[in-house]
């Protein structure tokens, strides 16, 4: 229910936002010569329904949306749904990899910082994590490319695979998984090589964010009596930290991880453009500059749905982690 409500809201917002444009999409998409031809402009407008009043356009759009039709991209002249289906797996592979990296690193470093509170390690980690949160991703991406590709040639520069390598047979669209499923180990290695740098760049911000949040959540839990109880039982410190402390600290960490999916999408727009990664980040940038309204609204809707789903999963996980919520 909330999902439907939010989708409606997002679609209205996106629709209004993109339709009050002083710029004319017809001009933007037809090019200079065609846009000076009134017939071409009129045909273009009729084709995309731009000649009708705005509310009518919206109702038509909503009607199509109910059938899963996101409209036709004014730029690629294909159904937005087809475009999205093509670009989503690439972004998914990048975003998921970077989130996993950010979670593993961020939570571990946050725990260490909390246990070493106010000592040198904590200060160093404070600089590292705040540094991650303060570095513009587009700049980090360029510096990483310059160092690891241009100077050291450790990784390939752009794209998901070398030009000479054929994509693995389509299964999930995630090249790493598909190539393993098909037993093409060389393709797997190649895709990991392409994936590693953009994923690390994308993970930097969230790694910092997770470190800060984990640190404060763990510090708060450490003050609790039950941590002392666990120690009094003679459990090893690692068990105390990971079973008792981290368990209790997990709800706020889960919250941030859920919210951080927004940061990842912001990052993908920049990182995908720099690494020529054929995902929806690049697609949405192209659509935005070309004023491709159906495509922009389509991407927004898709991302909003992902955001909502992720946060629903987070809500479910709260219950899994904390029995008091489960029963309430």
């Amino acid at each position, binding site marked *: 229910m909330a999902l439907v*409500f*939010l989708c409606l*809201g*997002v679609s209205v*917002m*996106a629709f209004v*936002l*993109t339709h*009050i*444009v*002083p*710029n004319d999409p017809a001009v933007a998409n037809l090019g200079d010569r065609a846009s000076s031809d009134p017939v071409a402009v009129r045909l273009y407008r009729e084709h995309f329904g731009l000649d009708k009043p705005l509310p009518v356009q919206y109702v038509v759009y909503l009607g199509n949306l109910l059938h899963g039709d996101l409209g036709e991209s004014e730029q690629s002249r294909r159904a937005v749904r087809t475009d999205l289906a093509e670009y989503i797996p690439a972004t998914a592979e990048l975003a998921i990899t970077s989130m996993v990296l950010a979670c593993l690193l961020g939570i571990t470093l946050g725990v260490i910082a909390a246990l070493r509170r106010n000592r040198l390690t904590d*200060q160093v980690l*404070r*600089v590292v994590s*705040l*540094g991650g*949160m*303060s*570095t*513009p*991703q*587009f*700049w*980090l991406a*360029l*510096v990483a490319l*310059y160092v690891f590709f*241009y100077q050291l040639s450790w990784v390939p520069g752009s794209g998901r695979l070398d030009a000479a390598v054929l994509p693995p047979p389509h299964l999930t669209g995630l090249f790493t998984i598909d190539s393993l499923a098909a037993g093409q180990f060389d393709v797997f290695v190649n895709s990991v090589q392409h994936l590693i740098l953009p994923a690390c760049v994308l993970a930097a911000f969230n790694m910092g964010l997770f470190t*800060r*949040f984990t640190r*404060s*959540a763990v510090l*708060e839990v450490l003050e609790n009596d039950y941590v002392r109880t666990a120690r009094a039982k003679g459990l090893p410190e690692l068990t105390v930290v990971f079973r008792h402390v981290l368990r209790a600290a997990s709800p*706020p960490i889960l*919250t*941030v991880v859920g*919210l951080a999916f*927004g*940061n990842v*999408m*912001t990052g993908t*727009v*920049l990182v995908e*453009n*720099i690494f020529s990664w054929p995902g929806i980040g690049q697609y*949405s*940038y192209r659509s*935005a*500059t070309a*004023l491709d309204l159906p495509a*922009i609204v389509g*991407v*927004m809707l898709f*991302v*909003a749905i992902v*955001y*909502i789903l992720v946060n629903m999963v987070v809500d479910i996980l709260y219950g899994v982690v904390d029995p008091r919520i489960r029963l309430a």
Partner: protein
Amino acid sequence: MSAAVINSNNRLTTAWRRIPGAWRQPLTVVGLVLAASWLVVALLAPWISPQDPLAQGPALYQAPSAAHLLGTDELGRDVFSRVLWGARISIPLAMLLVSLAFTIGGTLGGLAGYLGGWVDEVVMRGADFVFAVPTILLAMAVVAALGPGLFHAVLAVVLVSWPGIARVVRGLVRTTMESEYVAVGRLLGSPTHRALTVDVLPNVAGPVIVLAALEIGNAILLLSALSFLGLGARPPDAEWGSMVSTGAQHFEAWWIGVFPGVAIVSIVLAFNFLGDSLRDAFDPKAIIKARGA
């Protein structure tokens, strides 16, 4: 017993007294010094930069040297001067943007928290919509719709950053209003405006200051990202994001893109250091909870 006495038991208010402790953190001092020096640079750039940031010289692609501390770019402009002048664009804009966002977000969030009911509902649902769409997508859509340009980019960033502030302010106002000392104050017959000024304001002000420090950093990041994408400042302007973008096309002359980025990192880091240590001084939970709720 007056409401003020009861108030002194409250954690947020006592946190004000812990601020001096924050200065013992070396990183707070680093942040303060960095931020202050950037402010000075922004004020004095016309007098301290060796050259006109837009003046094209004969020496193109010069590596950093004594003549050009940070080298020259593809049009022979002095990168050092351009980086210094960049502070005059990013810092005032970020401040303007954050004060706009705080005025809008603070007012809406405060009203939502204080009045509750349908006002709360409308404001928070609006915030939800904005939250559900990644900031840069929304900003890109706004800029694309209005046309590229620094001012439009600022408007776009304001549009995406008010909900975060509104949420925090709303959460703080609500928890303060629901707290026992406000209830006791009411029982003792203190009027509503007194509750607002004595109880709510001091409790909201601290975390909001922390948030402002962190928001300035985020605003600079987002603004420079839009400029990098060509949606904010346009090329001749000495804006850090678009300078990095220029540098991306001239890989062999790394100094063109690297130094403006270093400038962004240092100023954002400065505000994050400040915000982080202030947050430690204030109740860290208040902000986390208000943000996560």
